[in-house]
C-alpha cells in the first residue's frame, strides 16, 4: 500500500512548522518571538498554496477511509488555512503589545488548524473525534493564554470543563452508532443503516448524543453558555480565531456525519435541528441586544449566526449545504474583519472594547469605522454585502423544502439583529467622542481589514465565484 503523501502535504507542513516553532522557541530571544509567528504565517499560507495545486477529479479516500480527498474537504481546508494565517498575522503585533509573544501560541494555532482540517476531511467517526480533540485541546490552552488575567483563566477553565463534557457525550454517541452498525466509517454506516431499515433506538440515541457534542462546538442553544464568557475572556486574537475556525470545522464535520453517515435518520435530525435553529437564532439575537462589550456582542451574534447556518442544514438539500458553505466563507470574512478592528483599537488588558469607546470613531478613524460599519451591515444581512447573499441562499433553501415558517423566523431575527448591529454604527457616526486617545493601527491589521472588507463587498456583488466553488464542493456529499 502506497501512502499518498501529497494529499496530506498541507497537514504535514503545518505539523512540521508547529514542531519547528516549539523547537526553536527556547533558542529565540524574548524580543524576537515574532519570528516564530512569522513561521506560522508562512506555513499556513504555504499550506493553502500547496492545497491549491491538488487536482480533485474524483472523490477518493485514503488511509483506509479515514481521510477523504474531495472538493468538500478542499474548500474547508483552504478556508481554515487562510483563517489560521490571518489569525497568526494579526497576532504578531497584538501579542507583542499584550506581552503574550511566546512560541507555543503559534504552535498551538497551527495544531488547532491541523485538527480542523482533519475534521473537514474525515471519513470516519474516530478520525473526526481525533480532529476535534486536536483542535479543542489547542484552543483550550489558547483561551487561557493571558495567564495573569483572571478572566482569561476563567475562560479557559470553563471552556475546558464544558468542552470535555461535550466530548464525552460525543464519544458516547459514536460508541452507540458503532454498536448499532458495527462500523465507524461513514460510508459503511450509511450502507448498513440502509440495509437495517427502520433505525434502531440506539442509533437515534447515538445521533442525539453526537448532536449534543457538536452543538457544544458550534454553540447551539442550549449548549451555548460557554460562548460569551470564553470569547470575552480569551485574548482577542484567539476570539477571532475561535469565532470562525472551530465553528466552521464543527459544521464541516457535522454536515459530513449527517449527510454521509446518517441520511437514514434525516427525519430525526431535521426535526431536532429545526427547533435548535429557532432557539439559537432567537436567543443569540435577543441577548446580543443587551451587550455593551463588543466582544460579548459578537459572541452572541456568533450564536445567532449558528442558528442561521442551521437553517441551511435543516433544509437537508444540496442547495442548503451550498448555502452553508457560502455563508461560512462570508461569516469568516466579516467576523475576522470586525474582530481585527476590535483588537487593533483595544488597549492592553482588553480595555476599550465597550460600545462607548467607539463613540465618534467615524471622525477619528474614518477608514476603520467605515470598514466596521460595512462588517456590521453584512452581519445584519443588508444587500450588496456578502451577508445578504448568504442569508438569501440559506432562506431560499429552507423555503424550497417547505420550511417557510423557519425562513420567516429567520428574517424576523435578522430584523432584531439590525438593532444591535446598527447601534454600533450609531456610536461610531452619530455620537461625539469623549476621549480623543488616538491609536496607531499597524499596517498588517490595516491590510487584513481592507482585504476582509473588499471580500465582503465582492461576495455581496459578485458572489458567483464562491457560489460555484460551493456548488462544486457539495458534489461528493450527494
Amino acid at each position: 500500500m502506497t501512502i499518498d503523501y501529497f494529499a496530506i502535504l498541507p497537514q504535514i507542513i503545518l505539523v512540521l512548522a508547529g514542531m519547528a516553532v516549539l523547537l526553536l522557541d527556547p533558542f529565540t530571544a524574548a524580543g524576537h518571538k515574532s519570528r516564530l509567528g512569522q513561521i506560522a504565517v508562512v506555513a499556513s499560507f504555504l499550506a493553502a498554496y500547496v492545497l491549491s495545486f491538488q487536482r480533485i477529479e474524483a472523490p477518493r479516500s485514503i488511509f483506509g477511509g479515514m481521510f477523504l480527498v474531495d472538493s468538500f474537504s478542499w474548500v474547508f481546508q483552504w478556508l481554515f488555512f487562510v483563517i489560521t494565517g490571518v489569525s497568526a498575522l494579526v497576532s504578531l503585533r497584538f501579542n507583542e503589545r499584550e506581552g503574550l509573544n511566546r512560541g507555543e501560541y503559534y504552535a498551538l494555532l497551527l495544531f488547532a488548524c491541523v485538527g480542523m482540517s482533519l475534521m473537514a476531511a474525515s471519513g470516519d467517526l474516530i478520525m473526526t473525534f481525533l480532529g476535534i480533540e486536536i483542535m479543542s485541546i489547542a484552543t483550550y490552552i489558547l483561551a487561557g493564554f493571558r495567564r495573569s488575567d483572571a478572566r482569561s483563566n476563567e475562560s479557559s477553565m470553563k471552556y475546558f470543563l464544558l468542552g470535555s463534557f461535550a466530548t464525552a457525550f460525543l464519544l458516547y454517541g459514536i460508541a452507540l452508532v458503532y454498536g448499532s452498525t458495527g462500523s465507524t466509517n461513514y460510508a459503511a454506516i450509511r450502507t448498513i443503516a440502509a440495509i437495517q431499515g427502520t433505525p434502531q433506538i440506539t442509533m437515534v440515541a447515538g445521533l442525539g448524543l453526537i448532536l449534543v457534542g457538536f452543538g457544544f462546538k458550534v454553540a447551539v442553544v442550549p449548549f451555548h453558555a460557554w460562548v460569551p464568557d470564553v470569547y470575552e475572556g480569551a485574548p482577542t486574537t484567539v476570539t477571532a480565531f475561535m469565532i470562525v475556525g472551530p465553528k466552521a470545522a464543527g459544521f464541516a464535520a457535522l454536515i459530513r456525519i449527517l449527510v454521509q453517515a446518517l441520511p437514514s435518520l434525516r427525519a430525526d435530525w431535521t426535526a431536532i435541528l429545526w427547533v435548535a435553529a429557532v432557539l439559537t437564532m432567537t436567543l443569540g439575537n435577543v441577548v446580543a441586544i443587551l451587550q455593551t462589550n463588543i466582544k460579548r456582542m459578537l459572541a452572541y451574534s456568533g450564536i445567532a449566526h449558528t442558528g442561521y447556518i442551521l437553517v441551511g442544514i435543516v433544509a437537508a438539500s444540496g442547495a442548503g449545504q451550498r448555502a452553508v458553505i457560502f455563508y461560512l466563507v462570508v461569516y469568516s470574512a466579516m467576523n475576522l474583519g470586525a474582530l481585527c478592528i476590535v483588537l487593533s483599537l483595544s488597549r492592553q488588558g482588553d480595555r476599550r472594547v465597550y460600545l462607548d469607546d467607539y463613540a465618534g470613531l467615524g471622525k477619528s478613524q474614518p477608514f476603520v469605522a467605515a470598514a466596521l460599519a460595512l462588517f456590521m451591515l453584512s452581519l445584519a444581512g443588508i444587500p450588496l454585502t456578502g451577508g445578504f447573499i448568504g442569508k438569501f441562499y440559506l432562506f431560499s433553501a429552507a423555503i424550497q423544502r417547505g420550511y417557510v415558517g423557519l425562513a420567516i423566523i429567520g428574517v424576523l431575527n435578522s430584523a432584531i439583529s439590525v438593532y444591535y448591529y446598527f447601534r454600533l454604527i450609531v456610536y461610531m457616526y452619530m455620537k461625539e467622542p469623549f476621549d480623543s486617545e488616538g491609536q496607531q493601527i499597524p499596517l498588517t491589521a490595516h491590510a487584513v481589514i481592507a482585504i476582509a472588507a473588499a471580500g465582503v463587498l465582492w461576495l455581496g456583488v459578485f458572489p458567483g465565484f464562491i457560489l460555484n466553488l460551493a456548488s462544486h464542493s457539495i458534489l461528493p456529499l450527494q
Partner: protein
Amino acid sequence: MLTRHILSLITYLPAVAGLALLLFPRHAQSAIKTFALLLSIATFLVSLHLYFHFNPAYGGMQYEEANAWIDAGPIRHHLGIDGISLFLILLTTFITPLAILSSWHSVTDRVKPYMICLLFLETGMIGVFAALDLVLFYIFWEAMLIPMYFLIGVWGGERRVYAAVKFILYTMVGSLLMLVAILYLFHLNGATTFDFVQISNNLAAGTFRITYGEEFWLFMAFLLAFAIKVPLFPFHTWLPDAHVEAPTAGSVILAGVLLKMGTYGLLRFCLPLFPASAIAAAPYLSFLALIGIVYGALVAMVQPDLKKLVAYSSVSHMGLIVLGIFAFTQQSLQGSTLQMLNHGLSTGALFLLVGMIYERRHTRQISDFGGLAHRNPVLASLFLVVTLSSIGLPGLNGFVGEVLILAGTFLKSPSNAAIAASGMILGAVYMLWMYQRVFFGKVTNAANMEMKDIGVREKWLLAPILVLMLWIGVYSAPFLQRMDASLKLVQQRIHDAHAPAGGYRVELPRALPLDSWHRAVPAQHPAAVQTGHPNASVTGFKYDH
C-alpha cells in the same frame, strides 16, 4: 451602444460620482459640492432622453437591458421602464440636484460623506424604479435605506438617532417579509426565474398558477413592505419623526421620492402579480387610505411645528394616492400616478421652503412667525404658490391629480370619493391657516424683522419646481399620455382576475375606454352600453351584495 445601456448609465452614474468623491481631499468642500451638483445635473439631463424617446403607445417595458448576474440564470440584472416608472425616475433625477443645492450652506460638517450619501441614495432610488428582477429590486430597495439612515442619523436634528433607528427598523421588518415572499414565489414558479416580467406574464397567461391562499399571503407580504413605505395608516408613525429630524435635503428626498416607492410598489407588483387579492383587499385598503386622508389632515391642523405639519400632510396626500390605486379605474390610476409626481414636487418644495425659513431663524414653530410677508414678499409669494399647489388649486399640478383620483374613485364608490374630498377641504384649511399665521398679520416677533428675503440660489432652487407645477397644471397631456398604456395593462390584469366568491364581481367591459383626463366622467359610457349590463354605466367593479 450608449442608448442601449441608458438605464444603467442613469442608475449608476450617481454612484460612480459618489465613489469618485472619495478621491477628493476632505477639505475641498466647494469642489466636492460643485462636483456632486454637476454630476447630478448631468444625470438629470441624460434621464431626459427617456422622456423624449419614450413610446407612449406601448404599455410594456422600454429601454430594457438584461444580463446574467448571479447564478447564471435565475437572478438577472434586468432594468426597464414603462409609463409608471418613467416619471418617478425623472422625479428622482430632478429632485436630487435640488436637494444637493439646498444643502449648499446648511451642511458644513462632513460635506464629503454627505454628498456621497446623497449620490448613493439617488442610485438606489433610480434602481428601485428601474429594476425588473425581483431580487435586484429588493437589493436596491434595501440598500437605499442605508444612505438615508446616515442622512437622518448623522446630519439630522436633535432626536436624529431615535428617528434614524425607527426609520430603519420599521422599513426593515416590512421588507424582510417581502424577501420571504419573493423567495416563495420563486420556488412556486419552479425555481426558474426572479424576473418580474416573466413571472407576471406567466401568471397572466395561466402557465404558472398559484392558489388563492398562496396569492393572499404573498400579497400581504408585499403589501406590508409597501404600506410601511407609503406610509398607509396605521404604519405611518415613523414618518413624522424621520421627516422632522432629517436635514432639509433628506426631508425633500424622503417626501419627494422615497414615499413614492411604496405606491409604486403597489402599482408595479401588488396589482399585476396578485390581482385577485388586490381586488379582495381593496375595500379594506381604501378604508385605511380614507382614515389616513382625514386623520393626517386633522393631525396636521394642530401641529405647532412647520415641518411636522408638512409631514402629516404627506400622510394625508399619500392616502389619497392609495385610494386611487385601489379604485382600479382608469382615471383613478392615472390620477394616482400623476399625483405621485405632484406630491413629490409640492411637498419637496414645501420642505425646501421650510428649510429656508429654518436656516434664517433656526426655529420651525409657527407661533414664532407672523407677518413674514411684509419683510419677505418674494418668499411669501413663492410659498403661496406651493401651498396652493399642495391644496390642489385649479391651474396648478395638484388639482389635476386630485380631480382624476376623486373622479375615478367616484365611479367606484361615491361615498369614498366624498370622504376623500372632505379630506381635501381639510387640507386647504390647515395649509391656508398655517400660511395665514406665518405670513400675514403684523410682525409680532422682533427677530423676524431682520429676516432676509430669498436669495439667488434659492430662487434657482424653486424656479424649476414652480415651472413644472404650472406646466402640469395647465397642460398635463404629455404626462398622462405616457402613463396611459402601461396603466391600462395593470387595469387589464385586475380585470382578468376573477376574485373568489364573496369578493368583487368583475364587470369591466373588455375594451377599456381611453379617456383623457378632461373627459374623466362620461355620463354614459359607449363601451358600457354595448355590454348592456345595467350596472355597467360606470366603469369599475361592484360589490357582490
